[in-house]
């Protein structure tokens, strides 16, 4: 079996001036091409875990391998670069910069990551074509044609643009942090369907984080924060 995307062992984290541990993970592994559902209520350490994986927080102890790389050994700026090279993010709400167009929002990671820019296309034109392909696959053809400003998009449409941005340039991992909690249930399912099919197409691993356990049925693999984070036990 190929190398795991995420391989966390005995990872502990607490804020510098606090003695209270926020996270104590004996083990958490996500294999390549998996679609993983991580369920947990707020305050269960989800955001901390994502911060650690994204290289914004640094673990106190334990090993934290992302694509086989120990995040801790990287410098601050190397961590920022590593994040954009290999991970795409989708947040709960307001993912987009209101002053950029739909396409420019999607292309943002390309200006920070050489690797993803090359994967998206050799020339600027190829890259724009790739952006359009993704947006059309995510059913936003009409909005590109109309050149709709980002702020005029519905929440569901905004989340799909965010998904396109997370997927552009085929990062190995897409982390979706409560991306559907602002959507109603019909939209939720259609959004997930689109996300799944795009991830499958590009072979991207998906880590889907939500407090809403009703979605877990759509995933083959599921973790619960309460089980993996032994701090709460």
């Amino acid at each position, binding site marked *: 079996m190929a190398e795991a995307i995420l391989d966390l062992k005995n990872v502990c984290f607490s804020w510098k001036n606090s003695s209270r541990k926020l996270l104590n993970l004996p083990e958490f592994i996500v294999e390549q091409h998996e679609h993983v559902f991580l369920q947990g209520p707020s305050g269960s350490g989800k955001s901390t875990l994502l911060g650690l994986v994204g290289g914004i927080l640094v673990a106190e102890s334990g090993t934290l391998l992302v694509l086989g790389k120990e995040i801790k050994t990287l410098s601050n700026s190397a961590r920022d670069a590593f*994040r954009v090279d290999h991970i795409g993010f989708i947040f709960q709400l307001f993912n987009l*910069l209101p002053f950029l167009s739909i396409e420019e929002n999607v292309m943002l990671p390309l200006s920070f990551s050489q690797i993803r820019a090359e994967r998206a296309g050799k020339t600027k034109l190829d890259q724009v074509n790739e952006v359009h392909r993704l947006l059309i696959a995510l059913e936003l053809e009409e909005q590109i044609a109309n050149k709709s400003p980002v702020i005029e998009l519905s929440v569901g449409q905004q989340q799909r643009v965010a998904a396109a941005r997370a997927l552009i340039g085929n990062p190995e991992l897409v982390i979706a942090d409560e991306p559907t909690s602002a959507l109603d249930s019909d939209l939720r399912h259609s959004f997930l369907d689109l996300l799944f099919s795009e991830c499958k197409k590009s072979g991207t691993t998906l880590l889907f984080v939500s407090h809403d356990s009703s979605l877990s049925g759509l995933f083959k693999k599921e973790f619960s924060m309460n089980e993996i984070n032994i701090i709460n036990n």
Partner: protein
Amino acid sequence: MINLLVRSLWNRRSTAVLTIFSISISVTLLLGVENIRQGVRGSFSSAVSGTDIIVGARGGSLQLLLYSIFRIGNAPNNLSWESYNDFLNDKRVKWTIPISLGDSHRGYRVLGTNQDYFKYFRYGSKKKLEFYEGGSFSKTFDAVIGSEVAIKFKYKLNEEIIISHGTGKKSFLKHDDRPFKVVGILKPTGTPVDQSLHVSLEGITAMHIDWESGAPPMEGESLSTEDIKRLDLKTEAITSFLIGLKSKIHAFSLQREINSFKEEPLSAIMPGVALQELWTILRTAEIGLRVVTWFVLFAGLLGMMTSLLSGLNERRREMAILRSVGAGPGTISFLLIFEATFLSLAGILFGLLLLYITLFVSQPLLEAYFGLFIPIHPPSFKDLIILSIIILTGMLMGLIPALRAYRQSLADGMTIRL
């Protein structure tokens, strides 16, 4: 990246424009005050160009400069015609201009002199006086008026004017029995010449004939104009005189000689030195003015920092998004510092534009109404230093929000808190 910055700024354009505007107002004020200061100094110096020494009765040097050139204040005493003649024929002297003051016309000073005034007097960059209409005085009761006097009272050639005794605006003692005739109008000079009426020394003497007691003669006792014309009008005293030297080397020795003149207590000054004295007095006011403008600038920059800081909270989301797509905290700080620099630079450019527009519009007005000529020239080296200090301060002001954004984006990470 720059594109990102510009677009982000465009999104907040109303605040950005206000910030730029407040900085540019400060820049305009700061450089404008500097320009006016130079203009004032320039117009003072331009009123005495070419004159090497000014001589008057013993008194303060600044006082002598002010009354003989700028028609401000009065002479403590007169000096005798004999003394004047002593120096008139000195080998080192190239020319002299006698000046006799003490009378006025509707608030404007009357200056008694001779033809040498029109021949030798220089102003600005060594320019000669020129006539707009008519010519110099030739008869006792002829007068040549400055441009401002002509414009203000709409005087034309051959108009008769009455000169008042003393220098008050409302004088009750008038030489109304001996009117003068306008024979010449001078072109504008931007110096006190514009505000003067020039008559011959004989005219001054003629006005005062039989005013022995300093009061007008009793009715019926005064001589008629016709009688006066037949008299031999000798000048006995003048107020001061200007000296032009053949060589400036002699300025100090001649000045010393005049100051220690045995026959009569005299004062000799070099206009440049006396002007320096004037600047020393005015410096406090200048400094006060400059401090105020620096504060205005400081307020403008503070406003920029305030708008950057308050914008920071709204922009937290923007920062988090940028972090999620790979921007480090350093990049985000850079964006903020760059923004501050850009805003101050734009403020400066707009301020310069505003300054030059104001200067071009106000230059003719200031010259016409106040006789103040403000030269327009590109920013001096000193101005450029001031401007770079502003940009530097702007950058530093951007550093504070940048540091905060740095810390904030470290703490916020990629989770967007609402």
